């Protein structure tokens, strides 16, 4: 069984934010209205964390961290879910089952990465975006929690394709949208346990760090940066 994980090379990342857009469009993440956005209900599965700066003018450097669900190995969100609406699959992806969720938002309260978002209202996409929604992903109803799923629908389809063609699932067949679009090839994705995969090679880089290491949630999203975190 593979163990899917991601490595983001901050030294390569050029902060263009294509991953954010790709994620929103791939997963039909709702674009909330102006009022809600100002209330702090904007929904992003992947977001560029607010810029933090190093050094003092004029030798300043901006540090941007593209942050998504860390797909922890020890997820704190699944422990508290009362109905098993979120749980860890065998392949390490922390799945979110929308028809199961009762919307108690306990998992959000317990996520140290604030990676989950809640459907405060029913989906309210602008017209043009409704017309070109991704048919592989369901539109979430109001009142359920959602989060990054490593584009799990892509895995389902890729697996099935591979099976139909009677072959193993190759590394590049299944990558999330954010990885696919990254122009500077800063995001690696794949099986962490497979020693030959690009991602596991990148994972053993000396620059590796994860967010909130001390919590022991064992994130499967690693970051590389020559500068310390």
């Amino acid at each position, binding site marked *: 069984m593979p163990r899917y994980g991601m490595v983001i090379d901050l030294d390569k990342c050029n902060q263009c934010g294509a991953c954010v857009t790709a994620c929103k469009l791939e997963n039909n993440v709702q*674009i909330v209205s102006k009022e809600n956005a100002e209330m702090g209900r904007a929904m992003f599965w992947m977001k560029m964390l607010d810029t933090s700066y190093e050094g003092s003018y004029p030798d300043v450097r901006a540090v941007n961290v593209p942050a998504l669900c860390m797909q922890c190995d020890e997820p704190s969100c699944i422990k508290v879910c009362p109905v098993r609406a979120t749980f860890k699959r065998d392949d390490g992806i922390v799945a979110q089952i929308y028809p199961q969720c009762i919307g108690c938002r306990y998992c959000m309260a317990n996520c140290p990465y604030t990676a989950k978002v809640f459907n405060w209202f029913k989906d309210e996409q602008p017209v043009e975006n409704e017309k070109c929604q991704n048919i592989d992903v*369901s539109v979430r109803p109001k009142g359920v929690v959602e989060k990054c799923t490593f584009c799990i629908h892509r895995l389902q389809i890729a697996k099935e394709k591979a099976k139909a063609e009677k072959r193993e699932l190759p590394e590049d067949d299944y990558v999330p949208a954010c990885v696919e679009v990254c122009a500077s090839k800063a995001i690696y994705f794949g099986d962490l346990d497979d020693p030959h995969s690009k991602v596991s090679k990148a994972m053993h880089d000396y620059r590796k760090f994860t967010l909130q290491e001390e919590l022991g949630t064992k994130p499967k999203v690693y970051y590389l940066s020559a500068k310390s975190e």
Partner: protein
Amino acid sequence: MEINRRDFMKLIGGSLAGLAIGGAAGAVMKLPKSAEPILYSGPRIESWKLTACTACPGGCSLKVRLIDNLPIQAFGNPLSPINEGGICSMGLASVARLYHPDRLTGPMKNVNGKFVSISYDEAYKILKDELGKVIDNKKQDDVFIAVQTESKLRADMFKKFSEETGFSNLIIENFQASGAYPYNQVSGEAPDFIDFDKCDYLLNFGSQITEVSENPLYYTRKIIEHRSKGFKHTAVQPKLTPSISKSDDWVPLLPVFYADFALGIAYVLLKDEQYDKAFVEKYFTGFNDFKQYVLDNYFPDKVQELTGVPSDKILQIGRDFEKAAAPAAYFDETIFYNSNGTENALAVIALNALKGFGGFGKLKEEFFSKILENEKKKEEEITFANLKERLSGHKAIKALLISGSNFVYNSPDQAELKKQLSEIPLIVSFSSFVDETSSFAHLIIPDHDDFEKFDLLIDKSMGLPSATVLQPVVDHYYNTIDTSDVLISLMKDLKSGAKIPYDNYNDYIKQFANKIYSTHEGILMDQSKPTVIEKGLRKIGWQTESYSSFDDFWDGLLDAGGWWNPFADKTSYNPKIDFKTNFGKQNASMKKSLASLPNKKLRLNIFRKNLDYKGSMSLYPVLVEQFGLKWTVFYQLWAEINPDTASKYSLQDRSKVVLKTSRGKFPVFLVYNPSVIPGSIDVPFGLGHTNFGDNCGVNPLAYSDDLFDKSTGMPSFSETLVEIDSASSGSSAYTAQIITDEKKLSGTQNRSVYA
């Protein structure tokens, strides 16, 4: 048992109650709406098509996903040498534009302020007759054509048109062309590309090279690679943009001072006698005057007091520059967003000349110029500057044709410009939205969407000639028509006996492709990158593959999404240049006032983000939403200010503030940003559309002073002074008022979700 009346009433009551409660319960227990399946008739067969992205000058190759032949998603084409599967936010979002509610569904005629739709023939007839009249009484010079296109071929078509019909006032806004403009002034030919194989030091003057530039995605990859090889990349810019995050060194500097800074560096080179002597005496006419001038005026301390860049920094960079074997001082169109832009550009060119343009390269044989008929024609270039003069001089303009350009939104002091525009008797727009500019049009003949038309985006910035196909992924939705086809039929009708070898634009493209084919060079993009051996074989004239016929090639081209020639050889770029200009004279007073701020004044530095190219962002809600994501500011204009400056004016972080320029007041949301130059206040460009898309935020350019580069007519982004006045109540009303009267002008419905 007997049931008396009361019992009966009870019974009725009971049953009604039951019914009601039951109904209520049922309604409550009802499945949520979303559980109902989305009925989607049709087999939902998935297919992929390749086309090109026109969101910015890059021209990346797109891989569009269609369900039942309707595009729903766009990704990067992994086989394209330009973007290698990568794609930026604008490209990703572009599909939504097809379905935009504000898109025009057909030709429109402006009947006293309201747009009414008319048939195409009707519209065409009006256009033809009006232009015919102009031609009959020999008033061709009173017709202006403002074009903004990133496709060289389309530009070429317009040149052809102006040549055939005699409408010589043709303004072509093209990122690459305007980048080459100053070169044409001094030498007549521009370098084709930065030669990353040679170049070992990149000095970048104000170009947001990895965001919106000639070829952002290619440059992104190259610069990362370049740095990993240990070569330096220094960026000179007024703002810490994401591009700079990939540079080793950042010199915060306002564009006004680029020339002085460049010459300061030139001074170091000249002083150390480290410049390329051979090159200089061979190609650099008027070098001695130049040298003298620089040595007299630009010793580092002077530059320091002029620009504020510490002299040792200038020295250090100068030394880096002179040590480098093949340095490149790079600039692109961005450098002109400033009232002395051309001067800056020339200074940078001069700096390059001192090192013999080592960092730049040129294709051995002018591949595309060979086959583009009209590209070389460059006798006195017409720019927006000319149009602006005309307008301000109130000299009669009979007609104005606008294609793709939204120059009202992109120009400062819009109130004045709008007044002037409303005086023009005939304005014809080919835009597919009623944007700020075409809201003044009397006639709109909407162009196809870029997903609905044919084109070929040719590019040399990779050091290799490449042509990416822009092909219709869906046959056009509405009653629109490709502008080039209109032009062709106009040419035929206006000038009888004009010999035009093609009857529509697709033919033209095909013929162009045929020229490429006939050279038998290069490969299609779906073929694997050639190995070294393969290259060697090519050198000795080995054909790896060839096509039986042109149609064969053409089909292959459409499937592959493009053509490129990895075998093209490049030469060094060494043009003859002569400088008559002596620099630094231009707007000295401006510089003074910007350098030493009058009290209570701040510099308004308008910066551009990679989500927006020339104000096209508001069409894509997904982009508008994440515009201010880094600051978690949504759907409103924000301003970044240095904490020290802020504390001087006692401004709080994340507070609402009203800025006041000579043109009016506008509200901003203030955030602290330690990377902002002290004394200046950075405001993003791209919000504040008033006619279409998401009407949110403010367009800061509308409030900045009416300054533009004298020779290119590009608006000045960073020379306005603002004051803080925190009477936020009146200001919001002010902006609201602007929006409303704009609405009156525009005929389209505005989606009021965010308005």
